[in-house]
């Protein structure tokens, strides 16, 4: 049995050079981890913003969504005629539809009586609005007028609604200056656009917001028959319906909302810039560490050159140092990121999660940061003159 890999095994010079000065290594790891944590936080907030903006969008029980072409996002929805939704039933693949009203109304905190804007959704309780299991049972209670379902993940500024409701206390308050009773709790989650949500019947919604014409809706949900192609049907509907309505697949509707936050506001840019700052800070830290490491060991590198080692081999040593720093700097950043995400989730209820995309993206950024800095530090190696060591 031959162990050919043993021929390629070498003394772990990069590792030994790095660990020779533990304090310097610790400082380097701390610097890289800090940069990594900064990037995790910034990209986490950015993705959290985009994800929260589509929390309700994702929960809607629909294959296609009708909106007004004038709608910009969930925070500035325009109405369109409800009859457009009925017209979609002419297409054979459409199974059912559900009209939804959506607007921001003022909620009065029943404890301190302060008002705050809340996102209100109005729908017919007999329709299917959300994919949430058990929702239809709760929706049944909305058939009585002035009844609402309160989002228990809403910010605490709306009052101790969940606590009161669970203690079987009658929760009564005002929305848009009109009395409502909380009949149940749902879990939707706040977003950057809305601190809280409530769901009610269309009848109650129109009572709370009488300026809204009864024949106008903000969202039309379309459920297709099994096996239908949403892309195809949306194209057919867009061609056949008048221009006062726009038909999107559910994914397109989610992207429509995300694109608003990405392109029409500075939020995406600000968080991306924050992540870039973390990247730059990390580059400076790693470069300083590797540059001083190469400078300190210059006579030793020159000795190796004098012995007949190729300068390429020495470049690889520095590159391996960069890789090891990336690895050791990333791991604490990842675990700290997990902890901080969890703290933010529990304190702000923002859905900031450590997904595979972020995990890989930040590892690649840390790797690029360390390898790029190593590549720049390598230039110093050229100064290692073997003739000078005699």
């Amino acid at each position: 049995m031959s162990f050919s890999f043993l021929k390629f095994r070498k003394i772990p010079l990069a590792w030994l050079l790095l660990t020779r000065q533990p304090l310097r290594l610790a400082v380097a790891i701390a610097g890289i981890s800090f940069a990594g944590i900064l990037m995790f936080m910034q990209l986490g907030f950015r993705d959290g913003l985009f994800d929260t903006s589509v929390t309700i969008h994702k929960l809607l029980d629909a294959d296609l969504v009708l909106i007004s072409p004038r709608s910009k996002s969930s925070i500035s929805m325009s109405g369109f005629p409800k009859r457009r939704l009925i017209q979609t039933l002419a297409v054979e693949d459409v199974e059912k539809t559900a009209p939804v009203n959506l607007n921001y109304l003022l909620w009065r905190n029943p404890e301190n009586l302060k008002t705050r804007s809340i996102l209100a959704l109005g729908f017919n309780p007999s329709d299917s609005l959300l994919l949430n299991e058990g929702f239809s049972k709760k929706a049944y209670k909305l058939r009585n007028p002035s009844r609402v379902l309160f989002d228990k993940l809403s910010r605490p500024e709306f009052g101790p609604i969940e606590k009161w409701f669970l203690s079987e206390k009658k929760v009564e308050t005002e929305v848009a200056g009109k009395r409502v009773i909380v009949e149940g709790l749902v879990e939707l989650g706040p977003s950057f656009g809305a601190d809280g949500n409530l769901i009610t019947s269309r009848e109650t919604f129109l009572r709370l917001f009488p300026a809204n014409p009864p024949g106008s809706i903000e969202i039309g949900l379309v459920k297709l028959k099994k096996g239908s192609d949403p892309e195809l049907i949306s194209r057919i509907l867009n061609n056949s319906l008048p221009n006062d309505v726009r038909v999107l697949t559910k994914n397109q509707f989610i992207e429509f909302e995300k694109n608003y936050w990405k392109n029409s506001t500075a939020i995406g840019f600000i968080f991306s810039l924050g992540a870039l700052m973390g990247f730059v800070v990390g580059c400076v830290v790693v470069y300083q560490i590797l540059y001083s490491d190469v400078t300190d060991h210059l006579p030793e590198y020159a000795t190796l050159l004098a012995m007949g080692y190729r300068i390429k081999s020495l470049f690889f040593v520095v590159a391996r140092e960069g890789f090891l720093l990336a690895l050791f700097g990333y791991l604490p950043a990842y675990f700290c990121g997990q902890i901080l995400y969890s703290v933010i989730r529990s304190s702000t209820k923002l859905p900031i999660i450590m997904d595979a995309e972020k995990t890989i993206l930040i590892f690649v950024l840390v790797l690029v940061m360390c390898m790029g800095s190593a590549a720049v530090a390598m230039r110093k190696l050229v100064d290692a003159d073997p003739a000078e060591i005699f």
Partner: protein
Amino acid sequence: MVKANKSKNNVKNLKTVSINNLSHFYGKNENKKQVLNDVNLNIDKGELVLLKGPSGCGKTTLLTLIGALRTCQSGDLTVLNNQLNGASRKTRQILRRSIGMIFQGHNLLRCLTAEQNVQMGADLIKGLTYLQRREIARNWLSAVGLEEHHKKLPNDLSGGQKQRVAIARALSANPKLLLADEPTSALDSVTGREIVTLLRKLAKEQNCSVLMVTHDPRISDMADRILNMEDGKIFSAHSELI
């Protein structure tokens, strides 16, 4: 005619170093200074040559030129059958693998143990496994009497022990030529003699030529030949210009 050429080649092959009219300069224009002046020198296989001379006479420059660490400017310099005048960087780098170098300041890698330092030399030998290379390193450490110190870092070794490690490192790559710059300067007379005795013994066993720059008069009797250098020229021990 063919026979004559062959004979000439055989003579050439016996020489580890062959230098004809080698000159070297530092600086440019009015700052240009000649440090080697038409140097001629031959070193045979297995020969131990001592090179003496005052500071600044060009000894180290000659050593670095023979060690393929500098580019040759003028004259012929053949080391181990490689003409170094006009040689590429790659040729010089490959040639250096056949030349062992012992530096005045040891230049051991501070982060490596004595054994790892020696193995850095053995790692240049192709076709060996890691364990074989480590075995070579251990054998050389044993040969210089440091088998019990193989796990020590350079900072934990005395000056003499560091020099022995440097010698073991230089010899572990099976060099055909050994260049040593003041290897005994930091050592007491007993250790200095021990080191040179060891070098001579190991060099003879490996048929390796040794060129040693030294000011140490205590080791003169151990050399095959002693050369003096002054103002960029080489003289024999009897002040005869060669």
